[in-house]
């Protein structure tokens, strides 16, 4: 089992630890709903050091990444980041990642914890002469998320951060620790992700010292999952995988068909005609639908749930499911949970939008 540098801190805080893809990670501290609401109202601190981080360097690095990812790195300049799927030749998704452009010839790719080895192999095998290095162990990653995240960090780094735009990066000194801040996250809330040297675990206490002032509390993987689901953010392994193309899920905006370089999977995606689509749903009865539950229209099985849970913000049973492309956006459906079918309604994938 693998552990992040913050494992002992999680244990000392009484976190419930679970095995997440081979990582001993905090599922919850005070409780999923409590942590969820604190992120929506104040600010939550997440250890996301289990995610993979690779550095791609050299004159070929831009070209190499342009062929690997479907989105277009020309859309961003230095000190910016971009979200993108990585596809196989057949259009199936290898992973969804964020690429950080530190310089014209230096990038960091952050990948899902579950895909670390697979992604490292994939990127290395398509790297041409660019250098690919796994920097996951020497760096750590924390996410500070919530409406008061910016105020909390400003207090600590002593510079103005409000003007840092989403998906932009800034290098800061946080109480003596050199950090890279990125205005990104996976909660649908404003916030930052913090990259730093993995030996500097005292950063946790620095971020937690203003509990009274900003209401900062640690948040675990449980709240991370309910927060991302409310915001309509997909999870690799649930809502997409190697048998899903970005055109079947709401990721068409990340496919840059007209960029100069031909990316892996482009041919397949150009010629694909998706027969299914990922949409949101709300269960109209008091049950929670879960991954794998079947979806029915007029008694006919038409799809399945990829993610489902209770939304602590809107206090409803929500989720994402695949249905045929011709199903209406607000179609009444039934979802089979256990032995019974329950009434549900299809919806947008976004159940919550901040501010």
């Amino acid at each position, binding site marked *: 089992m693998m552990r992040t540098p913050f494992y002992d801190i999680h244990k000392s805080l009484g976190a419930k630890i679970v095995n997440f893809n081979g990582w001993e990670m905090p*599922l*919850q501290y005070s*409780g*999923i*709903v*409590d942590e969820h609401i604190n992120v929506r109202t104040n600010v939550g601190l997440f250890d996301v050091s289990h995610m993979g981080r690779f550095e791609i360097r050299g004159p070929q690095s831009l070209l190499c990444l342009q062929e690997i990812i479907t989105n277009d790195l020309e859309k961003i300049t230095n000190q910016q980041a971009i979200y993108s799927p990585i596809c196989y030749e057949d259009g199936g998704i290898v992973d969804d990642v964020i690429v950080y452009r530190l310089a014209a010839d230096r990038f960091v790719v952050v990948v899902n914890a579950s895909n670390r080895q697979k992604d490292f192999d994939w990127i290395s095998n398509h790297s041409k002469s660019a250098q690919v290095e796994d920097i996951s162990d020497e760096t750590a990653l924390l996410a500070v998320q919530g409406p008061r995240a910016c105020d909390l960090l400003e207090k600590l780094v002593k510079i103005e951060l409000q003007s840092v735009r989403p998906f932009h990066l800034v290098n800061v000194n946080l109480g003596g620790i050199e950090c890279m801040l990125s205005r990104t996250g996976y909660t649908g809330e404003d916030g930052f992700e913090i990259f730093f040297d993995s030996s500097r675990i005292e950063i946790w206490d620095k971020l937690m010292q203003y509990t009274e002032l900003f209401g900062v509390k640690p948040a675990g993987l*449980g709240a991370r999952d*309910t927060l991302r689901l409310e915001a309509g953010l997909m999870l690799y392994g649930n809502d997409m995988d190697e048998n899903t193309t970005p055109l079947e899920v709401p990721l068409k905006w990340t496919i840059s068909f007209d960029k100069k370089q031909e990316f892996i999977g482009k041919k397949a995606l150009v010629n694909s005609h998706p027969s299914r689509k990922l949409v949101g749903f709300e269960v109209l009865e*008091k*049950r*929670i639908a*879960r991954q794998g539950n079947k979806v029915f229209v007029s008694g006919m099985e038409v799809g399945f749930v990829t993610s489902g*849970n*209770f939304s*602590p913000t809107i206090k409803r*049973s929500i989720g994402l499911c695949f249905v045929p492309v011709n199903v209406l956006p607000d179609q009444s459906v039934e979802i089979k*949970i*256990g032995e019974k079918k329950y009434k549900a309604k299809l919806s947008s994938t976004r159940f919550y939008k901040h501010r």
Partner: protein
Amino acid sequence: MLAAKKRIVLELKFTKQHEWLKVKEEMERGAIIGISDFAQEQLGDIVSIELPKSGGIFRQGQTIAIIDSVKASSDIYAPVSGEIIEVNEDLIEKPELINQSPYDSGWIAKIKPSNLEEFENLLTKEEYDRYIGEIN
């Protein structure tokens, strides 16, 4: 013999599926069913419950209720066979009562047991504590 039987059923009893059963007065008024503190702790925040209907007849081990938490859905089994004579309607609007008070206001249903011998399959508090010590 009868006195011995009465003593057994008056204690709080448990199942390995983490339900508890408690007879408050005479058996005819029913036994109260709930889930243990260990169970609610494992489930985390409970967000909904599907309750049985009053009058429903269940065999020992059959599903009588389904609890949804932010972590999982969980079937609740009848600790003994019998007829459901009352359900805790407060749980429909406040399922979190099970988290807050699993042995009291978070009770789930009242069952009129049809076979007292089944009580012998149930665990005492000590046996149950030892059991969760082993599985935890």
